[in-house]
């Protein structure tokens, strides 16, 4: 759904599916992406590790996250500079964030 909204918003979206952290980093580097969206379905510390690996490979790459994110997990990710979109977030807001994050990065 999010991917579709982003495509409708003019983005080229590469859907990863169920990837490991290493696979996400590899895809981000190989495809030279402008933004990574992480769909969180489990423990936030897995995501924190993936963010660390992504930053090591592509330090300026913007990252945002959605999915099942309790408030404390949102705070944990925000502290790392990752915007969060928990359930109930509007697709419009997500597309808007994608525009903002990619234009800031390229500016």
């Amino acid at each position, binding site marked *: 759904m999010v991917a579709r909204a982003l495509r409708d918003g003019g983005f080229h979206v590469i859907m990863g599916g169920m990837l490991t952290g290493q696979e996400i980093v590899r895809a981000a580097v190989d495809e030279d992406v402008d933004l990574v969206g992480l769909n969180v379905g489990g423990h936030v510390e*897995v995501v924190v590790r993936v963010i660390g690996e992504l930053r090591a490979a592509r330090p300026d790459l913007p990252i945002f996250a959605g999915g099942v994110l309790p408030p404390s997990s949102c705070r944990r990710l925000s502290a790392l500079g990752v915007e969060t979109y928990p359930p*109930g977030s509007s697709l419009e807001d997500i597309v808007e964030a994608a525009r903002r994050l990619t234009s800031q990065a390229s500016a």
Partner: protein
Amino acid sequence: MSSRSSSVVTSRSGIPLKAAYGPDDVPDSLRRHAGTLPGDAPYHRGGFPQGYRTKPWRIFQLSGFGNPEDENERIKFLLKHGETGFLMEHDRNTADHLYNVDHPDVQARREDVGQTGAVMQSVREVAICLDGIPIESTYGHAGGAVVQHAPFALAAYWTVARRRGIPLAELGGTGQSDFFLTYLGCVTKQQIPTAAGLRLNADIIEFCSRHAPKWVPVSIAGYNGGDTGLNAWQELGAVIANAIEYLDEVQRRGHLDMATAAYRVGGVNFRTTMDFFEDIAKLRAARKLWHDLLRDRYGITDERALRLRIHIVTAGSMMTYAQPFNNIVRGTMMALSAVLGGTQSLGVSGYDEAISIPSEHAHQMSVRIQQILQHETNIGAVTDPLGGSYYVEALTAEMAERATGFAAQIAAQGGFLATLDSGWLHARARDNQVAWQAAEEEGRQTVVGVTDFRDDHSPFEIDGFPGVNDAYEVARSRLEDVRRERHEVGAHAALKSLEQACRGTDNIMPKMLDALEAEVTLGEIGDVYRSVWGDWQTPELA
């Protein structure tokens, strides 16, 4: 669900609704049955005349997290507070893919391990999870929601029972082995192809019919289709199409009489949502369609088989992240819908569903909601209390008609498995999700606390249930124990024998039981499956 547009009011699935209904709105197809009572064919009014008077619905909550000890403790907690059956969840990182915990993909997300259930790689861990739980007298769900995991989950549970001296012939319970979850809901990597999955389910159905007559072998879970996006009549139509696939396969194999097979398969699951009456109609229509299918397609006359038994889980997707206390009301409404629809068992999703796995308190509330309905409202005194309502009867007929049409569409494309393989069913679900999301974002569908009424004065934050931190390490060490302590030659022989059964046509369940007795582990079984059947090709969605 309320629609803000005054011109056309529809149900959630798009059925146009009138402002009031009268006798002319009930079509002939149901008016013919106007004089029937609950317990009479075609059973839309209920399978059993005494309804909840003689058999209250089973309070049946999904549960599981952490280490097997934590899961055991939570199951005991729920049973102590009035749950009347239990469902044990296996850790999905390992179970869904048949990986041991040291598989690279599991290691890559090790903090996730134990978030969705306890890791159970061998009978030892299942035994810990069931420790002190009287499975001889308590209806249990062994897990095995994903098709390829079911034979392991069932055999492990049965092995624990056998070691306690409980004959399999006397053991009551169920598994799931659901195609909707496996191939539609959570399309993940490394699942066996659908045809191999069908073979496993047919093996389970035949094995249980011979050796475990009190066990519900597989449970078609319309819920997982519904919460993926199928609307009410699509969910029902797809469940019927799924049942046809199972029963045709059993018929083709020719080992079982069809009435026995249909009785085994006739415990299915649906979801109820926030469209209160639509889902009541769905359950009433489901019983009628089940009866009609068995009578017309398979010539079954055995009344026991013709009566569909229903388990309901209230829709997790209806539970909002914002203002989670509101979800207690949503859970209550969806539970009420299930009860008025005549369900045999019920799980109410936790009020923290959108935030995390259920906390103890959320779990307790799910049980309390059901107890209040059972004990305080007098709602179970009369069976099918809405029978004869012009609106509910008309909606039931409409639901049956649309579901039949959807099942026919699936049949026209080669059947249920074909629509999973091609991605056709996925596209239907996706289209609905997009439409529903648009309805919310464009102001046509209100969700309290989300689209409107967003001020929240909750006195404290619900931050979700964190689970435990050591499930990965504990599971690693238990796996090493098994590898060190088991009889290697025996384990390898049992695994080889299981592989031969998979490659041939013999029922795999006896070999699976032997393998688990020999302490063969989950990941080794997965490797056998992968070498025999390979992986399902996930459909590309247009």
